[in-house]
């Protein structure tokens, strides 16, 4: 039972931070299917800097944990500029642009990983080993039955994510910037009339989403795979998008959706272990979050209300 909560949370929280990034972008009116690619690129950037740092400065990999988180955010943000440029300045179709970014991110990171591995380390590998992050347990509270598991074996990044998530939620809902951002998604002309520049706000929103996606990506690399490899492109970015649609583009309901995905996944493995199923069945268990997403979308998509100007190219002259 404890394992269920621990594993569920460690999967749900990175998903949640990516979904918040998506909320930022989509509430500002820019459809963001690029999350998948952004998280991969962010993870690549973070992992690369860790591996290089360990190689050239002889710092043990574990010590670079927080630096990796930070640089993953930087990497995701840098790559998201591409999406912002395509959508806002080059007026490309936002859905197509998102998919383009994903494909390019995958091709580029896989190419660069193998290339850098062979040049710098002289190894034929498409992975950067970064190890798992350490975990900690809060003494005292973790002794509470069942609920105490929330405080057991926590990855440090979970705390980081929670702090950033609360801050991001506050900015989006309580500040002037957040108000304008949300207005951009619903009625960009009113923002223009109020004297703010729509394209600038949208640009910032996409960059925030890139940074948060990068953070989510490196957390997956630290918790699930212990390395950066092409396997990071597991579709978690798309799961995050499904979560935010299911959460109706609002922060708290999205958190609920992410928890649901996390527990569904952990629960699937849990059941597999209890029933002592052979390992081939793990393939079937892997489908659980995706099936759940589809089912939830069937029930909830109809009542959902997307931001009104979502996916539209903002045209100043149009009234």
């Amino acid at each position: 039972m404890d394992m269920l909560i621990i594993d569920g949370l460690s999967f749900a929280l990175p998903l949640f931070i990516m979904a918040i990034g998506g909320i930022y972008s989509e509430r500002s009116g820019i459809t963001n299917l690029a999350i998948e690619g952004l998280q991969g690129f962010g993870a690549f950037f973070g992992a690369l800097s860790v591996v290089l740092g360990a190689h050239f400065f002889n710092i043990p990999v574990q010590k670079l944990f927080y630096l990796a988180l930070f640089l993953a955010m930087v990497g995701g943000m840098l790559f998201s500029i591409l999406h912002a440029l395509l959508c806002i300045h080059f007026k490309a179709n936002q859905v197509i642009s998102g998919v383009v970014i994903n494909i390019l991110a995958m091709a580029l990171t896989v190419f660069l990983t193998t290339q850098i591995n062979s040049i710098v380390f002289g190894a034929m590998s498409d992975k950067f080993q970064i190890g798992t992050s350490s975990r900690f347990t809060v003494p005292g509270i973790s002794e509470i039955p069942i609920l105490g598991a929330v405080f057991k074996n926590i990855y440090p990044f979970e705390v980081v994510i929670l702090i950033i998530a609360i801050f991001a939620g506050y900015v989006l809902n309580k500040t002037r910037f957040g108000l304008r951002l949300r207005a951009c998604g619903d009625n960009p002309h009113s923002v223009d009339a109020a004297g703010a520049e729509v394209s600038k706000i949208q640009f910032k929103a996409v960059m925030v989403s890139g940074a948060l996606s990068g953070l989510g990506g490196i957390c997956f690399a630290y918790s699930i795979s212990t390395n950066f490899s092409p396997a990071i492109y597991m579709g978690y970015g798309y799961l995050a998008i499904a979560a935010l649609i299911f959460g109706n583009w609002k922060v708290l309901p999205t958190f609920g959706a992410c928890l649901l995905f996390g527990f569904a996944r952990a629960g699937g493995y849990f059941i597999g272990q209890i029933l002592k199923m052979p390992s081939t069945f793990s393939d079937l268990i892997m489908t659980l979050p995706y099936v759940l997403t589809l089912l939830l979308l069937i029930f909830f998509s109809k009542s959902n209300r997307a931001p009104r100007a979502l996916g539209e190219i903002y045209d100043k002259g149009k009234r």
Partner: protein
Amino acid sequence: MSEVKKKNTTKINYLSKITLKLLGNEKWQHLRIPAFLILLSFIAASIIIIILGKNPLGAFYNLLQGAGILPKPSYAGYKSMLTDFLTLLNFMTPMIFASLAVAIALKGGLFNIGVSGQMLLAGYFATIIVGYSGLSSIMAKPLVLIIGIMAGAGLGGIIGLLKFKFNINEVVSSIMFNYIIQYVLSFFIHSYYIDPVSRQSKYINEAARLTLVNVELSGLKMDFSIGFIIAIILAIILKIFIDKSRIGFEIKAVGSNPKGAKYAGINVGKTMILTMVLSGAFAGLAGVTYYLGYYASIQPKVLPSMGFDAIAVALLGNANPYGIIASSFIVSIIDKGSTYMSSIAGVRQEIASVITGLILLFSACGAYIQFKIRSSKDKLEYKAGKELEE
């Protein structure tokens, strides 16, 4: 006043004049802009290759050699430039089908990113139903095509239905289906059809295969793709269908403006589902020509990357079937030639997908380039008119 004029003249500099001259002619724009985009992406790829300390021109030359466009210095037994070229066509066949699938969805205003999943599903069903049966060649080959079409169309139809009935974005639902199909089929292949040596599904019977392999002709062993001829014929039919038929018009109308189409009395939901069914059918054909033509088995747990490359091909070909034949030829060369290139020039094979990705990136800006050209042309004309007045 004169100061303002000066500013205007410097604004349109020589560089834009040259590009205007090259790309401005509207008659050839649909050919010149894609060519320009490909050029841009190759320049970008060259920069990467130069940074790696290799010669880009040599690498691209090897690319063409590997694809059977230019002769290699030496060939193994039974091989020649012709056999390489036929292998290229064999590889290109599913690419054409997959890109047509993306293109018809784009025409209808939908984005079918689930082509990979539809390909895998169609390939799987055709493999287990026909591929392992002892049917004779005349029975088996058409049956493979039919099963492929039905499986793909069925899945496409479901995605269209979900979009219409439940308002689920087709991109999200088809990606979910991609993953579900990938894992579920991996489970079945691992449980029932696995070849323990190759770690893939068992090879299908030769009779069911859509490519005639190792046909001996004048001392060469060639692969003839039956699907290639079908692909070309279907591309032409699709072009006529979209341009001339009523349903084709309805699909385009829904794609460009669903509200307008509704007021014109078109059943938007039905058309949407039909578009996805058609798109899925083409994806199914891509699947059977891929898994039962180019290959003869299925690698479990892997989605064909071709389904994603097809998006690049369709965008590059401007979603026009004729354009797609041309652009899939180019992208196939990049894909097929990359193995030879990496072995000769020492540039890693993964650069091929980077080049495809770059083409994709620049294609996404195609409409913008067109728009920019038109607006700067207008500016020039306006200026010329002003000067005439004075």
